[in-house]
């Protein structure tokens, strides 16, 4: 690098002298990568040398070394402003890794253990006549249960949530709207076990219905509704007011404006919100334990008799406490994660497909 380089900026008002240059000394591009490798090596070295048993400690030492080392190096070579930039950048990277490590290890663990039992038989058979200590059996009854319960919960919660959001954004003024917003916020905070207990006391104990998938679906819909309202509300607020005015100025009634202009413009985001809330309730186990009761056999009728569901099945197999049931629990966990993953992909697909187009 040629020319005079400056360690600190010129004082204000100082005219650039003949040696003034816009160039600053920069660390080579590979520095962060090299430093990260060095920090990892030192971290492992210290870990082995000091006999630290926890690998998390090794990682934290390496992360700390990387952040401090990057700052010190940049401060020496590049100046203080650049050093602060490097500090923030390396902190973001370390935090990103800290956030990703549990996720990756969780997926790795589930896939490696769950894929042992995952095959066609596992997906297409129930636990009927299979002793828990035997290998074999499957999750078919739990998949059916999850699909039906989540489907019914969505059929209840999505329309109500959608209409509530439309009311809040398009019509709601004054006290009623404020009250609705407040209760939606309260509902967001309801623990799933409380929603389950509410349906248990209301539907099963007071009205004397039996355990069923439908009872579980009602509790799940209570959990789902505020999420749908919130996400739909945000999406509707993003629709520019100009589009509503354009439609109204054409002499289109307000309800048709909402139906034909506002909702189609926001449909991608709304679909994503609904799918994400479906993914959230698909993993709920507390209301299912209370209301659906659990079952070993296939029950296709969600309105009559006990069913199973994937979260319940995982709990049940884990509780059985032997090698074969542990394998089945991991297999079911893998199926559940795949189910949620597929829903997310579908939601993204819909959002991309329905997004307003700007191409020529």
């Amino acid at each position, binding site marked *: 690098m040629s020319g005079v380089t400056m360690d600190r900026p010129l004082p204000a008002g100082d005219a650039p002298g003949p040696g003034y240059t816009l160039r600053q000394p920069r660390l080579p591009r590979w520095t962060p990568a090299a430093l990260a490798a060095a920090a990892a090596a030192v971290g492992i070295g210290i870990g082995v040398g000091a006999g630290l048993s926890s690998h998390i400690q090794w990682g934290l030492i390496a992360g700390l070394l990387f952040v401090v080392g990057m700052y010190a190096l940049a401060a020496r070579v590049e100046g203080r402003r650049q050093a602060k930039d490097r500090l923030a950048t390396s902190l973001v990277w370390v935090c990103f890794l800290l956030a990703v490590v549990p996720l990756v290890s969780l997926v790795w663990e589930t896939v490696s253990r769950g894929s042992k039992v995952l095959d066609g038989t596992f997906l297409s058979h129930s636990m009927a006549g299979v002793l828990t200590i035997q290998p074999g059996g499957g999750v078919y009854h739990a998949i059916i249960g999850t699909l039906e319960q989540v489907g019914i919960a969505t059929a209840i919660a999505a329309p109500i949530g959608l209409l509530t959001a439309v009311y809040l954004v398009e019509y709601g003024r004054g006290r009623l709207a404020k009250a609705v917003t407040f209760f939606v916020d309260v509902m967001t905070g309801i623990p799933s076990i409380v929603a389950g207990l509410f349906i248990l006391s209301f539907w099963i104990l007071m009205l004397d219905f039996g355990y069923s998938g439908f009872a579980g679906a009602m509790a799940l819909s209570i959990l789902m509704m505020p999420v749908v309202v919130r996400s739909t509300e945000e999406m509707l607020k993003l629709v520019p007011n100009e589009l509503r005015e354009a439609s109204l100025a*054409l002499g289109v009634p307000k309800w048709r404006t909402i139906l034909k202009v506002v909702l189609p413009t926001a449909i991608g985001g709304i679909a994503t919100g609904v799918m994400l809330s479906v993914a959230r309730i698909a993993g709920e186990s507390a209301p299912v334990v209370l209301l659906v009761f659990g079952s070993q056999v296939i029950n296709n009728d969600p309105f009559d008799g006990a069913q199973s569901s994937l979260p319940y099945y995982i709990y049940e197999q884990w509780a059985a406490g032997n090698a074969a049931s542990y394998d089945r629990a991991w297999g079911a966990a893998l199926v559940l994660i795949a189910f949620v993953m597929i829903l997310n992909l579908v939601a993204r697909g819909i959002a991309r497909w329905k997004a307003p187009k700007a191409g020529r």
Partner: protein
Amino acid sequence: MAKRIDVSGLSAFYGAHKAIDDISMTVEPRSVTAFIGPSGCGKSTFLRTLNRMHEVTPGGRVEGKVLLDDENLYGPGVDPVSVRRTVGMVFQRPNPFPTMSIYENVVAGVRLNGGRLRKAELDAVVEKSLKGANLWKEVKDRLNKPGAGLSGGQQQRLCIARAIAVEPQVLLMDEPCSALDPISTLAIEDLIGELKERFTIVIVTHNMQQAARVSDRTAFFNLAGVGQPGKLVEIDDTERIFSNPSVQATEDYISGRFG
């Protein structure tokens, strides 16, 4: 087709704030009337009271009368929806519906109003409206492409086509050229000259040359100070307003000696 507008004693409010005070004027059919005046003097608010769009704003309220060929827009039992079908509007920023194609944008008013037309009739409406908006030649080969993909000037002409497709009697334009380049502006001004054969046109503009070029009559609005309601200073033939206005404030504003 075109109708006369008679405004008498009209005041408009945003909540407790009075935005325009006691305005009376007549807008002749088959003519272009321009509204000029400084920002915040209530030109756009007044324009929006002419098709009852003002009350769409939360807190928007109107007192006074607007007669459209002897029928009061604010009379009891008048449906704002049918008012807006009679009095169309074009906005400052082009706002085509992003989910719809060019074709669907043009017929949006017809379709959303519940009209059940056959394909051939819709095609005729689209061709007529786009020709009316001077856009047909540019888009006739890509009617099924999204309306949002057009240039700003084309989008604004698309919005004009959408507004005239529902066959209104009056067309209100709220600074339709302020977001456009001079060439697109010229295209729209030419279009206004053609449209006045069929519609009553009211246009709000900040561009004095534009008012002088396109309008037959010009109204000058002003406000006494910040927070005061806007008032109509005078309305007269455009030629007179720009050569020999009867109020000193108008002359000051037009010649740039404002404030």
